[in-house]
């Protein structure tokens, strides 16, 4: 839609201001990562003026740039958290893969194949997301213990994948719904099997949708808290849970927490950036044909 120049200017300004407001807390939090406790607690609060230093990052990542070697113990300090970042990446990536693999086929089926009770089946899939987290975490604890999945990468990957299945299935089904069934039907007439149609025709067309679903699955796994807390001990932990270690009995290490938090935004944000074209273009919930 063509708009007049002043309107465009206003709109640009508005856009920047709105996103700026949303971005401000992130900016502030990142600066906290670069401060000493002295500079975090002030009135009026110091927003732009403070002495930056890499202290917090060094403690969290175990690298000593300005501190002497006695003070920072690489690989053993109190707040050494870098391996946890890796854990988070591993878990989010693989659970996303698992979720997408399972969900795509199911979503295609739900989009294309008519069977009795289809509507209710989808409702049931959706309802699996409705339980309060604590109600699921405890029975899962027992099952995991039974199958020695407790405190393992496999266990958390599975649970995160399952957690994301309803979302993935629903989203992907909408993308498939967007692709006209005539394509399938003409291919069927030509004698192709469902599987072939799925793999060679429909799937490539739904790439955007898959990307979008994958990103959301990644984000939900990256930020999940209660399951990781309940089902892990020492072998692995993800960033959200390990951040609470900064709440010690003699005070919260805000600077270190912010350092880890800021660092943790980066991998997830990279994933979002890579996919964001597809995200915006492809994320239709479909069914615009009423």
């Amino acid at each position, binding site marked *: 839609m063509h708009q007049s120049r002043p309107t465009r200017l206003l709109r640009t300004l508005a856009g920047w201001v709105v996103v700026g407001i949303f971005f401000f807390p992130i900016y502030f939090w990142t600066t906290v990562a670069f401060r000493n406790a002295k500079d975090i607690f002030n009135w009026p609060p110091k927003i732009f003026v403070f002495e930056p230093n890499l202290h917090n990052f060094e403690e969290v990542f175990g690298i000593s740039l300005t501190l002497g070697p006695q003070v920072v113990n690489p690989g053993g*300090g109190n707040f050494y958290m870098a391996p946890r970042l890796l854990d988070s990446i591993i878990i989010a990536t693989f659970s996303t893969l698992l979720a997408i693999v399972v969900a795509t086929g199911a979503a295609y089926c739900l989009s294309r194949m008519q069977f009795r009770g289809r509507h209710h089946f989808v409702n049931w899939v959706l309802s699996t997301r409705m339980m309060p987290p604590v109600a699921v975490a405890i029975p899962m604890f027992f099952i995991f213990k039974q199958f020695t999945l407790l405190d393992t990468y496999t266990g958390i990957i599975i649970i995160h994948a399952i957690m994301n299945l309803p979302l993935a299935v629903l989203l992907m089904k909408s993308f498939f719904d967007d692709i006209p069934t005539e394509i399938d039907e003409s291919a069927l007439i030509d004698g192709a099997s469902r599987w072939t149609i799925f793999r060679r025709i429909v799937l490539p067309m739904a790439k955007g949708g898959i990307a979008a679903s994958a990103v959301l699955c990644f984000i939900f796994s990256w930020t999940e808290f209660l399951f990781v807390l309940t089902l892990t001990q020492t072998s692995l932990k993800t960033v959200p849970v390990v951040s609470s270690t900064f709440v010690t*009995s003699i005070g919260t290490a805000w600077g270190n927490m912010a350092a880890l938090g800021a660092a943790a935004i980066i991998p997830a944000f990279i994933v979002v950036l890579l996919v964001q074209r597809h995200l915006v273009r492809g994320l239709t919930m479909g069914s615009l044909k009423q």
Partner: protein
Amino acid sequence: MKDNDRKRYLASVTDRFAKGQMGRRQFLKASAALGLAGLGTSMIGRPSGLFTPAYAQEALTPSPEVIAWLKDVAKPFAGTTLKLATEATPPSNALNSQLKGYFEEATGIKVEIEILPLEQVLQKLTLDVASSLGTYDLYYIDQSWAASVSQDVFDPREQYAANAALAMPNYNLDDFLPALVDGICVYEDRWVGVPYDIPVFIMIYRKDIYDQFGLKAPATLAELLSNSEIITKEMGPTVYGTTGQMKSGHYSLECDWTAWLWGHGGSVFGPDGKFTGNDDRGLEAMAYWDKLKATMPPGVDGWTWDGQGQSVAQGVAASMLSWGEFFPYFDDPTQTKVSGLCEVAVPPAANLLRTSAETGYGEIPGVGHQGGSSLAVSKYSKAPDAAWIFMQWATCADTQALITSLGGGTGPTRASVYEDPRVLANARVGAGTTRHLNVVRETIANHMGSEPDLPEWAQLSSDTIPVGLGKYFAGGYGSAKEALDDIAGQVGKVMEG
């Protein structure tokens, strides 16, 4: 001795020690005599965030006898893995980051310590105990949970007597301060582990501000109030007289409450087991607390001890009656604005104190509220013997002295550790100081208050009482009486089960 001279002499002493020309004991004596402020800053670079050893790293290693015993006794257990979940307290951090390595090297037993905030430790403990799955081999048990899990752990006295082969020589169970054993571990004549850490309320105040107004450390509750009122009046709202840990629905609020309650001769329970927080003395305490709150920064309603500590550290509050563990942090110049400006004193004397005979469930009134924890071996552990070895090592006098020196000046639970030269050496201004430990020790001996021991206490102290009190301070009740009567009712319901 002039500062420059002192530093030069210290340097030469250190030099000789490093070159092996001086024995360790001589070195310790010499540096102690010189006052270790110099030693601290010359040996180590900028202090790290929370913990700084004032000693060279070489001086702070376990004693050879301990290591020898470990190597000897742990031979059959090499290759086992032990798990423990604990709160992020200085001892646990010190163990996990610096001391654990010695144990693992000597014994071949791997120890995995999960460090979490207190509520999450409780979650893990509850789950493990209720399911008897033995996911953890050792438990870190806050004294308010001791009654709930007393049956799930071994009594260390029995362990020590039963396993002569594994008993650590000179472990000395009597060395643990009796007041702590009573307050933290004893439940129905069982020991629920041994005392492991002892955060206890002491009076911390800004000497410079107090001097400015000609005030002395408060000896009575009334003095605390009047001191705080004076300071708030003259220096508010930039600086307030005192501060609190009054977050609604959080255990910290209950801790503050007990200090004032006990200080006014009240108690949580009576000998018949009924809630007595709403009797006359309890109401007196609330009236006092209301007045005291007016001298606190407005943020107290949202702070746990964390925010409370920050308010003193950043110069917003001039005093606090809270965990002694904070004190070393206050002395750290990179993190706080008050390094060297704070002093300690025992808590103000109570107006009146009920005796334990007049309270219920083993409650021991005293203004110095203690929040200690114990360490115990789980009955469901798959490796109880290896766990017992670790537990003895982690709580023996030598390790505890190291923890205290490395772990930011936290209070020891053993009498002998208070006298240990390494601990005494750290009694200077600077991060990791131990100069408050005399006061801590005296508080433990004469002013300590311990909460009642009953299985429902975890719920009462972490939820029922602080939610009710929080509602009161947010204005949700007409009067303190109404609030406490309501709490009494709810406590009654919980007790009925």
